[in-house]
């Protein structure tokens, strides 16, 4: 067997691991926010809150149709428009139509991963519309022609000297790596764009069905300005992002901001429920809410994966995952990276296509521990691997690696029949001989096994297995001795 050619995932991962700059950023990110969130959960007075919010998330998925209808009714009553988009194209077409009717030339954006999922920016640009990101991180990414590498902190892979160079080049300012000066430069450039924009395009962190509002969480205020300054506001909402009541909203937002940035509440929480009116003159003149499915109902319909829709996109799982902590966000090749991305990307965009995301984790469980809503991502990663192992009609997935299928069939025969298992071990012990070095370690193996020995030594099969030792020493049954039990010890 020869070595497999490296996949894009592995090559991108390697690139990140070779960058000391990125490794340092990831390290400090995880040290601060990963550990911080775990400490927050441990110290939180209300230890039942996470379970409660998870329960409400799951309940809301159960009643999603009713809640969405309620939300739409309430937004429409206030004069807003609601469009249900089944596909990405649907959402794009609708938004383009709104832009055309309003003769939009410039769109300012509030941070939205969904906008990246449906790839609306290129569609707008193709229609001759300028698109400007206003979230500082996203703005930097846009200036650099780069891709986000974290769902909350999109430019975590760039340090301030890189950003300084970028601003000097693109904004024509003198080079500086002083964060306040850089922020001021971005602020100046962005204010001009915000003041002259014809349309604001944002995401939606949560939507409250009972009141008919969407809410947006941010710390910079630019997202709020994107919703209020341009005459038209289009909000893109993933259809699962709904809560039933304001009470639920309060608790869910608190978990979101804690998980994302260790904040009890973010600096801004903006509620938008329709266009401005005579008694509420703030805000855009037109408000459009685009509720997007784009593969979500398929996830909703599968009990194995429904739980992933309870995600509130806080990004905490990225801040603890030891794999993300090494490979960064770009290797995931998706708007959603880290553990949540590893589960949701294959489900939205193809399990075979993203097989490396399904298989490229250790299932260590840290993501489940840190998740504010306790989503069992490792369970779903294992479930995704099952689709790759056996294929799945429901998910339109074919067997990923026929050779591996044979290997595990053989493995099954061996472990279920111990004489074969024992004989196999003896043969393997003979075969390993030429590879065992003086320090009783194997340093080099061929084929897939070289994956181990390229970077690590491997202990050989022992001269005598435990089983063999046992047969020699304990062929006659041992006398059964009385045992010290809990009661005896406590007595």
């Amino acid at each position, binding site marked *: 067997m020869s070595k497999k050619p490296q996949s894009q995932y592995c090559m991108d991962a390697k690139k990140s691991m070779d960058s000391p700059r990125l490794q340092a950023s990831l390290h400090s990110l995880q040290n601060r926010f990963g550990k911080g969130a775990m400490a927050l959960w441990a110290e939180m007075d209300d230890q039942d809150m996470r379970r409660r919010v998870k329960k409400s998330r799951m309940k809301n998925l159960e009643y999603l149709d009713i809640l969405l209808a309620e939300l739409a009714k309430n937004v429409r009553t206030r004069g807003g428009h609601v469009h249900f988009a089944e596909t990405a194209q649907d959402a794009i077409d609708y938004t383009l139509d709104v832009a055309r009717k309003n003769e939009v030339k410039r769109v300012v954006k509030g941070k939205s991963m969904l906008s990246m999922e449906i790839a609306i920016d290129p569609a707008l640009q193709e229609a001759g519309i300028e698109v400007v990101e206003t979230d500082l991180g996203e703005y930097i990414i846009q200036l650099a022609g780069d891709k986000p590498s974290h769902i909350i902190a999109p430019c975590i892979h760039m340090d301030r000297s890189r950003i300084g160079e970028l601003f000097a080049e693109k904004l024509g300012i003198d080079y500086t790596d002083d964060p306040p000066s850089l922020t001021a430069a971005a602020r100046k450039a962005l204010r001009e764009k915000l003041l002259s924009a014809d349309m604001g395009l944002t995401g939606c962190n949560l939507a409250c069905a009972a009141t008919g509002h969407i809410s947006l969480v941010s710390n910079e205020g630019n997202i709020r300005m994107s919703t209020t300054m341009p005459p038209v506001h289009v909000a893109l909402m993933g259809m699962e992002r709904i809560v039933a009541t304001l009470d639920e909203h309060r608790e869910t937002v608190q978990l979101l901001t804690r998980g994302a940035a260790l904040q009890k509440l973010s600096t801004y929480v903006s509620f938008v429920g329709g266009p401005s009116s005579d008694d509420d003159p703030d805000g855009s003149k037109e408000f459009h809410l685009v509720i997007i499915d784009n593969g979500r109902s398929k996830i909703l319909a599968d009990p194995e994966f429904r739980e992933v829709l309870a995600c509130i996109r806080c990004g905490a799982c990225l801040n603890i995952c030891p794999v993300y902590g090494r490979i960064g966000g770009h290797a995931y090749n998706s708007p959603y990276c880290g553990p949540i991305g590893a589960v949701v990307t294959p489900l939205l965009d193809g399990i075979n296509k993203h097989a490396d995301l399904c298989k490229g984790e250790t299932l260590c469980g840290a993501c489940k521990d840190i998740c504010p809503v306790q989503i069992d991502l490792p369970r779903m990663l294992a479930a995704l691997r099952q689709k790759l192992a056996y294929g799945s009609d429901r998910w339109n997935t074919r067997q990923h690696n026929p050779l591996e299928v044979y290997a595990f069939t053989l493995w099954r025969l061996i472990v*279920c029949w111990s004489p074969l298992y024992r004989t196999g071990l003896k043969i393997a012990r003979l075969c390993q001989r030429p590879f065992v070095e003086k320090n009783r370690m194997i340093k080099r193996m061929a084929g897939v096994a070289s994956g181990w020995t390229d970077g690590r030594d491997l202990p050989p099969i022992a001269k005598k297995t435990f089983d063999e030792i046992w047969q020699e020493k304990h062929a006659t049954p041992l006398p059964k001795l009385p045992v010290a039990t809990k009661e005896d010890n406590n007595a």
Partner: protein
Amino acid sequence: MPGKTVSLFIQCLVDTMFPETGEAMISVFDRLGVAYDYPPGQTCCGQPAFNSGYSRDAAAAAKHFIDIFEAAAVIVCPSGSCVHMVRHHYPELFADDPAMHSRALAIGAKTFEFTQYLVDELAIHDVGAQFPGTVTYHDSCHLNRGLGIADQPRTLLKNVRGLELIEMRDSDTCCGFGGTFSVNYPEISVAMVDEKVDNILATGAGTVTGCDISCLMNILGRLRRRGEDVQVLHIAQILAGDKGEKR
């Protein structure tokens, strides 16, 4: 309550590559007067297949395990991840088969990891071992997060005479083993174990220990490749007061 005879489940890696761990476990039981047997025919709990998505093949291994161990009063294994597999994943594997499902639940309820059995079931905090030297402890993921076992091994270690426990930084961060992950994604896996090795070295401890041989094998392999001679011992070897390295 009459003393139960412990049925040893010797995890496949212990059986084949680290038999001294199994022997050490036995000598601890001998010292404590715990009776044990070793049900013949045991092989592997099925974890490699399960983690790779081959749940049907894993279910076959699980059935084999259940057949072999069903008569046992209590099952003790020197590996947290195997116990996690038996306790938590066996029932999932038979979700659609009520008869097998209840057999799986029954097996899970009487399967314990070694240190968990000593501390939680037998209420033993001091096994009477001696081990001169400094030791650092790695928290394996399935042991720590899956089974919630973190205090038990530390309690036992702290009561070993002559042993000084030095905690490493991020002891509960994954070592990067992950079964087939380690060979399928070697670069990522090695980058992860490198950090673990750095944290071990930073303690200056002479020995690193843990309750899962698979993680320890990963750590050992990287330590040796980096030319480091920190001793790697399964906790049973320390509790047996057995200072001998792998033969």
